[in-house]
Every structure is written in structure tokens, then in C-alpha cells.
């Protein structure tokens, strides 16, 4: 199995992009990544596309073909594969791209993540998001997606004493980081009071504990590591890739407060990379809701189970902390165009490792981790990267 490296990245702004269609977002992110990598269309062996629900958001299936077409590759007849794993669609697409290169099948692939959520009304959008949960046994009975994570939060508060203030601090931190990110949906700092006073969405989560509905796209170019230096002098190697699944419904998990899919995907990635949680210098984790970030830093092994809230209190994960988490602003402030997120997380880590993160740059970073979750933890990917 060969090593895989990232040789180019591209991103659109994330937000309510009324002027941009699904196709325009695809083309924008894709072309940026390809230009960044300095590759030509004839060198691309395959396209991997992560999008959760183009069918329900824009009425379009057959998205692999659409992306190949929109990107101008219809007459190169490049194979295009659409991957779906709810909110982990992007991360799974990245992993599939990696596997195709590691196996020797492909040399260069482009991986894109796209979601256009604002072409439907808000009620339809939330109705579509909840298809990441168990439609028949959670959503049917009245559970919403924030409601499911809220139940996780209630239990986490009960088992470990995590507080609403700690949850709020996650949002505050991520907004502070987002303010430094020109591509973020929200670029304003917020205070704890604002978060605590926000309208309740599903107790104990309020509006500002929840990531927004967003449009956006992200794209990366993957290349066999042995050939990467031909294209860039700063390739970033993906030294570990892991993926795992778990029960679809939160109620069927063995421990409501532990995302076993994160634990296993991380284990896989650490093992392949021959690294431990202590080796990670910067991480993008899946903060679809503030509680999700707290669980993530526990399940990824950065802190012990139950101590996520304390870590937030001790400011371990702020931009100037010992392990900065979500320097991009996370899903919370950067935005969460569902399928794009997993790929956008890779973009942020790559920029950090290349020293190109501008105002968000963490000094002396060598190893970064990206963590992408589907639904309430039914699927998860973890990727670990290091500059070559």
C-alpha cells in the first residue's frame, strides 16, 4: 500500500450564498484545488464527491456525473464516485480517494465535498438533516437532529457534571477563531452571555450551540506520495486514515455519551500513523453542536472520558492552548455545508501544516488531525496528516 499526500486545496466561502448554485460551488472549489496543485485535467484519474443529500436539497441525484460534467471533465470521461455518509460524506470521500491511490489503482484523484442547503426552505432543510438519524425510530416519533444531540448533552451533564457554560465556551472559542477566517460564515466574536441567552432549540442546546445551515464546497487533490514532489514542494502526507460505523440510532448505542465510531476510527488512524493522541498538534473536530466537540476531544483520546468540559474550562483547546481545536471556526462558526465539511477540515489542517493559516496559524505544528462524524455518531472518519 502506497502513501498518499495532499498536493492542492480549494475552498469557497461558506454561508448563505444566494448567488451560487450547487454547480457553481462545485466548479469554484474544484478549480481552485486543481490550480493550487498545478495539475491538468488529463492527469486526474478519478473524482470522489461527498454530498449528503443533493437529492432532497436540489432535487438532483447522479451527482458523480454532475460534478464531472460541471468541472469540465465530461469529455475526459473521468470516473466519478458519489459517496454518502450523512455529515461524514466528505470524510468518507477523502478516505475512498486515499484508498484508490494507496491500492495503486489511481495516481491522482480530486476529492470534493459540496452542499447547497438554502435552495429549500428552513423546515425542509431541517427535515432533510434529520435523515442522518434513524428515520423510522427516532425522527418519526418527533426527535429532531438537535434534539438527539441535546439528549446526549443531558446525559453527559448527568454522568460527568458538564455544564451549559462549558458548552457555551465551545461556541465562543469557535466564533473567535471564525472571526479570523475569511471563508467562515460567521466572522464575529460572541460572548458566553449571548450563547446562554439564545433561543432554546432543544434543551439544553440553544441556537448558538448549533452549527448553521450553509452553502459551500471544498476540494483537495490527492496524489501518490512518491510522485507528490513533482507538483508541490510542500505536500502533506496523510499518514493515518480510519473509518468506523456504529448503530444508526442514538438509543441503540452501548454508551450514549461515547461515540464508539470516533474511538474506532481514531484507533485505526493512530495505528496506521504510528502516533498517539499526544502527538497531535492541531485538530479539526466535528462540532455540529457544542456538545459534539466536548465528546470528540474525549473520544479522540485528547482527554479522558468525561473531562471534555474541564478541558474547555482550562482553555486547552483555544487558539493559543496546548491543543488548538477547530482553528477554522469549526462547523459552528465556519459553517456546515454538510458534504463539504469533511473535505474542508482537511483543507484547514493542510493550511496549518503548510504555515498558510494566516491569522489562525498555530506555531510549530507538525501533525494535524481531522475528525468527521455522520449523524449522531453512526459513522466517522479520522485522518492524520504530517508535512513531508
Amino acid at each position, binding site marked *: 500500500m502506497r502513501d498518499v499526500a495532499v498536493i492542492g486545496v480549494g475552498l469557497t466561502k461558506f454561508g448563505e450564498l444566494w448567488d451560487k448554485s450547487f454547480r457553481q460551488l462545485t466548479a469554484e472549489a474544484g478549480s481552485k484545488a486543481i490550480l493550487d496543485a498545478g495539475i491538468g485535467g488529463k492527469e486526474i484519474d478519478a473524482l470522489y464527491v461527498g454530498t449528503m443529500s443533493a437529492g432532497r436539497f436540489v432535487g438532483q441525484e447522479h451527482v458523480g456525473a454532475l460534478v464531472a460534467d460541471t468541472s469540465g471533465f465530461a469529455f475526459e470521461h473521468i470516473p466519478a464516485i458519489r459517496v454518502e455518509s450523512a455529515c461524514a460524506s466528505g470524510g468518507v470521500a477523502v478516505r475512498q480517494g486515499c484508498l484508490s491511490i494507496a491500492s495503486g489503482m489511481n495516481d491522482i484523484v480530486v476529492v470534493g465535498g459540496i452542499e447547497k442547503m438554502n435552495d429549500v426552505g428552513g423546515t425542509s432543510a431541517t427535515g432533510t438533516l434529520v435523515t442522518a438519524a434513524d428515520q423510522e425510530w427516532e425522527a418519526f*416519533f*418527533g426527535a429532531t437532529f438537535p434534539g438527539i444531540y441535546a439528549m446526549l448533552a*443531558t446525559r453527559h451533564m*448527568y454522568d460527568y457534571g458538564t455544564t451549559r457554560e462549558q458548552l457555551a465556551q465551545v461556541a465562543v472559542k469557535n466564533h473567535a477563531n471564525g472571526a479570523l477566517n475569511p471563508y467562515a460564515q460567521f466572522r464575529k466574536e460572541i460572548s458566553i452571555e449571548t450563547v446562554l441567552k439564545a433561543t432554546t432549540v432543544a*434543551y439544553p442546546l440553544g441556537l448558538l450551540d448549533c452549527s448553521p445551515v450553509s452553502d459551500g464546497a471544498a476540494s483537495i487533490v490527492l496524489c501518490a506520495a512518491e510522485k507528490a514532489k513533482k507538483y508541490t514542494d510542500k505536500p502533506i502526507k496523510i499518514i493515518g486514515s480510519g473509518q468506523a460505523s456504529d448503530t444508526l440510532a442514538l*438509543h441503540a448505542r452501548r454508551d450514549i455519551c461515547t461515540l464508539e465510531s470516533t474511538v474506532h476510527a481514531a484507533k485505526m488512524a493512530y495505528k496506521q500513523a504510528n502516533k498517539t493522541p499526544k502527538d497531535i498538534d492541531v485538530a479539526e473536530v466535528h462540532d455540529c453542536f457544542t456538545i459534539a466537540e466536548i465528546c470528540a476531544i474525549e473520544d479522540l483520546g485528547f482527554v479522558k472520558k468525561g473531562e471534555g468540559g474541564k478541558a474547555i474550562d482550562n482553555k486547552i483547546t483555544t487558539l493559543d492552548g496546548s491543543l488548538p481545536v477547530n482553528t477554522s471556526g469549526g462547523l459552528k462558526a465556519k459553517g456546515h455545508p454538510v458534504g463539504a465539511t469533511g473535505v474542508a477540515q482537511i483543507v484547514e489542517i493542510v493550511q496549518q501544516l503548510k504555515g498558510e493559516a494566516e491569522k489562525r496559524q498555530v506555531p510549530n505544528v507538525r501533525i494535524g488531525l481531522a475528525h468527521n462524524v455522520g449523524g449522531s455518531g453512526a459513522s466517522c472518519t479520522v485522518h492524520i496528516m504530517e508535512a513531508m
Partner: protein
Amino acid sequence: MYGSYHGGDVNMTDGGVARFWREIPQRYNFIGNRCGSCERVFFPPRESCPYCRRKSMGKMKETKLSGKGEVVTYTIIHVGPENFEEQIPYPIAIIKLEDGPQVTAQIVDCPLDEIKIGMKVESTFRRIQEDGYTGAIYYGYKFIKKRE
């Protein structure tokens, strides 16, 4: 409910009732099944046991759960899906049934500030959803505080 492209007066599922009819035994009567190999109980019923896998295939036995259990965790939904808007704010909980499996369901007839983790509950028969004003009505389980 599930489709975003239908108006309020039309059956939103275009008359597609089969999937809701199939699950009447589950929604009305908590019919689950039990692994013939390890005896674990599952709800909803499964084709095979996730622990025993092939050893359990063809050996799953139908069983009726009692509908009694306790609250494991809960939330109060303030922003609800279309079909539940008239009920907000409403509690949703994960309930551990005494037979073993856990389910997600609404708690009713209980003041919101009295809901607690560990509260003993039992099931009650209520309207869950309807397919618009002209469509089928789907009945099923919700939970109330256990009667003494």
C-alpha cells in the same frame, strides 16, 4: 413530513402507506424479537443478532415487550419538525425498556420540569403523526409516568 415538495392538502407520501402499516405491531404492541442464540431482546425486531450474527439467522423469535421502562436521557424540543409544531415545547426521551432495548419517544402528561433521568415510565397509545389533513393517521407509543 418526509417530502419537501408537496402542499399541505395533499397526502404527502402520495398514498405510500405500506411502510407505516408494516410497523403497526411495533408501534401498537411493542412486538420485538429475541436472539435464539444469546436470548437478547431487540426492539424493533431484527433479522439477525448483532452479537451472534450468523448463529442467529433463522433463529430470531418474536416476543412482546411490556412497554415499561425508565428515562435514560431527555430533551425538550422547542424547534420542532413540521408535523409536531403544534406540540412544542415537548419532551423527547431515550427510554430503557425493562426487557432490555432502548427507544426514542415523547413523554406526555408530565410537567416539563418534573422529567428526570431515572423516572419510571410506561407506554400509552397516542397519535404520533398524520399524513396531512387528508392522509392516514399513524398511532403509536408515547410514555407517561408509571402509574402506581
